């Protein structure tokens, strides 16, 4: 008796399953089953709602809903798997420039990636819909997707809204944690779920190009309107890979109460620091963190050293590495002698350095514009000046922010047009600066900006772009260790830079 009942139920179940599978495959199925599939899909994923506007024919609504869910689930799975790697893969290179982004990344990855999954599903839905049933051409064909971090998304949103209103082209800003943009592009791009455009830093370029996920672009006559340091930063193997919009570099910050006139030379700086320490006004006149080679690059170049030699056109030659050149050794000995003289202290990290400056416990530091907001809140009277001259004019590293073109975008011509005809214009560049005040890479916008930003910009104009070769992560590692060892007085300065250079050269081959 029960057995018969059981068989009947199994039969019903089998039919239900088959119907589900068929519906999901997008084949014609019984109306009942299709509705069931749609309900399940709607229940499983919120993304199903996005299917509604893009689907024209009501009969196919259910099929598309299923397809959307499928897409959303994949995106979610990829997001979940990558979230782990992302947290782990924050490299030394980016931490220097994006400390805040990196620290929050671990906490926030889960949230933005989930939204990513939900929203990136939208364009794919459109694609599915077009292949299934040809939709009549409308003015909104194509959806330009831009991956951008949360802060910059807020800055760009009004501009994009305006653009959408004027041109009737759909543009979607997708927010991701800053580092995730690079890591997700490497994974999602090849899987066909990439954006059209990403907003990122110039030191990603080499890594992204060797992975084949970004395309070169051509600025034409507009290239002349960009600061050369910014376009050089986005150039890899002789091709330009980004439209830069902002640059940032370290400069010297000094406490106006302790140092009325900023030193012009390195010797002056040391004299002032010694006087302040001897008089007991501050425990440390000048402070430099030991764990960030990025911050010491200005010293390296100021004493005549270099990381990569430059070609005549201003780009780097990764074959000529110069941490152990005569200038590089002079730089190492300078740090060593300053530590010995008590003008520098070991075990100082970036946060300790910034903390000491905010509390007035140190008079001079070298730091970047990202510190200004914090510094203003502390109430210290500070000034921003160029880094004092050593044996030659120091050149700090310049990080360049800009727009890059994904290799896997579905609207390449539109993306290019958007970058050259909308982003690279006076109005847009001005608006980007107002919303996200970094020193503009667009020369016409550089006039009439905030004094602090202009002061950091003056330092950036003298600087070298952050190298974008993919081997840079290895360079940071050994270089940073050699500086730390000198600070800790464990190795002679000469040996520290020579050893590090040997290891780095092996990696560069």
């Amino acid at each position, binding site marked *: 008796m029960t057995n018969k009942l059981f068989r009947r139920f199994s039969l019903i179940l089998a039919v239900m399953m088959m119907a589900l599978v068929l519906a999901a495959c997008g084949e014609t199925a019984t109306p009942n089953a299709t509705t069931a599939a749609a309900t399940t899909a709607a229940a499983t994923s919120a993304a199903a709602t996005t299917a509604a506007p893009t689907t024209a024919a009501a009969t196919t609504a259910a099929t598309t809903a299923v397809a959307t869910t499928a897409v959303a689930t994949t995106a979610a799975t990829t997001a979940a798997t990558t979230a782990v790697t992302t947290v782990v893969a924050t490299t030394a290179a980016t931490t220097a420039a994006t400390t805040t982004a990196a620290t929050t990344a671990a906490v926030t990855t889960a949230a933005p990636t989930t939204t990513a999954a939900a929203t990136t599903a939208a364009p794919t839905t459109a694609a599915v819909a077009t292949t299934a049933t040809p939709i009549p051409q409308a003015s909104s064909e194509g959806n330009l997707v831009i991956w951008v971090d949360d802060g910059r998304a807020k800055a760009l949103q009004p501009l994009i809204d305006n653009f959408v209103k004027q041109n009737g082209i759909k543009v979607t800003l997708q927010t991701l944690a800053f580092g995730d943009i690079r890591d997700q592009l490497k994974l999602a791009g090849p899987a066909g779920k990439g954006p059209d455009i990403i907003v990122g830093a110039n030191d990603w370029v080499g890594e992204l190009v060797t992975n*084949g996920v970004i395309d070169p672009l051509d600025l034409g006559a507009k290239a002349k309107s960009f600061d050369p340091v910014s376009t050089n930063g986005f150039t890899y193997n002789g091709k330009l890979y980004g439209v830069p919009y902002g640059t940032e570099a370290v400069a010297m910050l000094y406490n106006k109460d302790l140092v009325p006139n900023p030193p012009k030379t390195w010797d002056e700086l040391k004299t002032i620091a010694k006087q302040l320490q001897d008089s007991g006004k501050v425990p440390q006149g000048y402070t430099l963190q030991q764990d960030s080679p990025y911050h010491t690059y200005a010293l390296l170049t100021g004493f005549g050293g270099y990381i990569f030699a430059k070609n005549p056109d201003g780009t780097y030659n990764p074959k000529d590495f110069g941490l152990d050149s005569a200038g590089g050794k002079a730089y190492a000995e300078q740090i060593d002698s300053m530590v010995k003289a008590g003008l520098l202290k070991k075990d100082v990290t970036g946060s300790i350095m910034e903390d000491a400056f905010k509390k007035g416990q140190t008079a001079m530091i070298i730091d970047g514009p990202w510190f200004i907001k914090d510094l203003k809140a502390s109430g210290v009277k500070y000034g921003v000046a160029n880094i004092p001259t050593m044996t030659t004019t120091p050149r700090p590293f310049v990080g360049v922010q800009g727009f890059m073109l994904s290799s896997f975008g579905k609207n390449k011509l539109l993306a290019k047009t958007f970058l050259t005809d909308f982003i690279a214009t006076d109005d847009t560049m001005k608006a980007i600066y107002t919303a996200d005040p970094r020193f503009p890479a667009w020369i016409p916008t550089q006039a009439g900006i905030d004094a602090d930003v202009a002061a950091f910009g003056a330092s950036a104009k003298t600087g070298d772009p952050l190298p974008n070769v993919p081997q840079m992560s290895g360079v940071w590692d050994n270089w940073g260790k050699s500086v730390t060892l000198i600070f800790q007085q464990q190795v002679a300065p000469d040996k520290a830079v020579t050893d590090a250079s040997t290891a780095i050269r092996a990696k560069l081959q």
Partner: protein
Amino acid sequence: MLQQQLERSSNNSGGNKGGGAQSRPSFSLRGLGLRLLGLAVIDAVASLFVITLFGDGLPIVAVAIILITIVVNWVFLSEQLYALRWLTPGVLLLILMVVYPLIYTIYSSFTNYGDSHRLTKDQVIAQLKTQTYQGANGATYSWTAYRSPDNKFKIILQNPTTNKSFIGDESGLKPYDAPATLPATLDGGFQKLTPFAAASQEKQLAALNLKNDQVAIQLISSSQAQELLSKYSFDPATDKLTDLESKVVYTPVKGTFTSSDGREIQPGFTSLVGGENYGRIFSDSNITAPFFGVFVWTIVFAAMSVLLTFAFGLSMALVLNDPQLPLKPLFRSLIFIPYTIPSFISALVWAGLFSIIGPVGIFSKTIFGDAFSWQADPNWAKVMLLFINTWLGYPYMMLICLGALQSIPTDMFEAAILDGATAIQKFFSLTLPLLLVSVAPLLIASFAFNFNNFGLINLVTKGGPPDSATTTPAGKTDILISYTFNLAFASGKGSDLGLASTISFFIFLIVAGITIFNFRFTKRLEEVF
């Protein structure tokens, strides 16, 4: 109620061991309905998942999921397999989540998957085929697009050097006599498009037949179009890629198209490289030189962490277990607090306290002198790590010891007291051995966890201080897992996931070996007591 259910299910499974249909549980319609509903939901989710996986090009996983779903359905529908009903899903998922990743890791260790070798060969070829070059006679035009109300397109191409113009549509190019400024409309209701409007019709414009002497004209930017030729051609038969511009022939070598004179085309693709990664582990001095030191420190770190947390946790538990202790709940809560704070926050807080501006750092400088440093001295850095790890881990040990202590029968102690045993004798001869029987597996788990405690090392010292003797990516406090991370991600040419998989596999072997040894050891313990 719950108790009843438990009893019933245990009765059922007990009866089932005897086999036969009469042991089948009592049949209820509601139960069957719920079961079918549950299965329907599982099947629906599984089929969506499978479709997604097929779409993503992961057919092996998809087939695995199909098989699992079929087995699950079969087990749940067949009354004969009742005993397997609650075991099967778990076992199958275990295979999917544990065994499959392990196999995949081993597979990856034989490939060069990583930065610059992420795409598949087909993707690389497809990407290279889209690359173009401008031939010697290739002209550059400026272009303007027009659209008619019925969605037909025309493009006017103007060559600024020769001053010749063309108009093109589906039928091909025709010469066009262009006025100084192009008209806003053309015959047939064609309206001039703005650059954005034109660019958003990319597909339709690309479908137009724009060819000059068989050379395709492509729209390369918002204003320019060029006569372009394909740069690469690939012959699947010979597996060779030819650069049509320079006539150089490239063959795939370990996931990179390489010419006979050693030139390489980027990006590369993932390919099997045989035992290369394994060879590197044994031959690369960067990897071999610090390996022994790192390995010893990893063992010391894991063992000392377990020992210290256990010793400290146990002593706390003994104190709290004393019936004469007043305010017990209060003390228990206070002692347990470290466990309730997320460990990465505690680790960062402790790193701050030990830094030169932190109270511990300042205090130790006043005692040991200015040269003292928790960060620069490798031995003190290790002490610091063990201290922090003990602080993070003892509440857990205390908790399990408290539970285990309750389960030791008190009559043994009464007998011991009658025999005149001292407190120390009681502890080492009775409490500790009896406790170890129940706690030992947890100690092994704790060992395995600390063996791979990447988080603590990375948050507190990042492996530092650096090793001064060598130029390797290992720091003085790096353990195997953080060292792996350095090798694979932080110190080379981007992420080298193939090498990372290889080392992960070795770490798996080491941890598995240690765990097997430990379980043997514990089993002996159990046999003795």
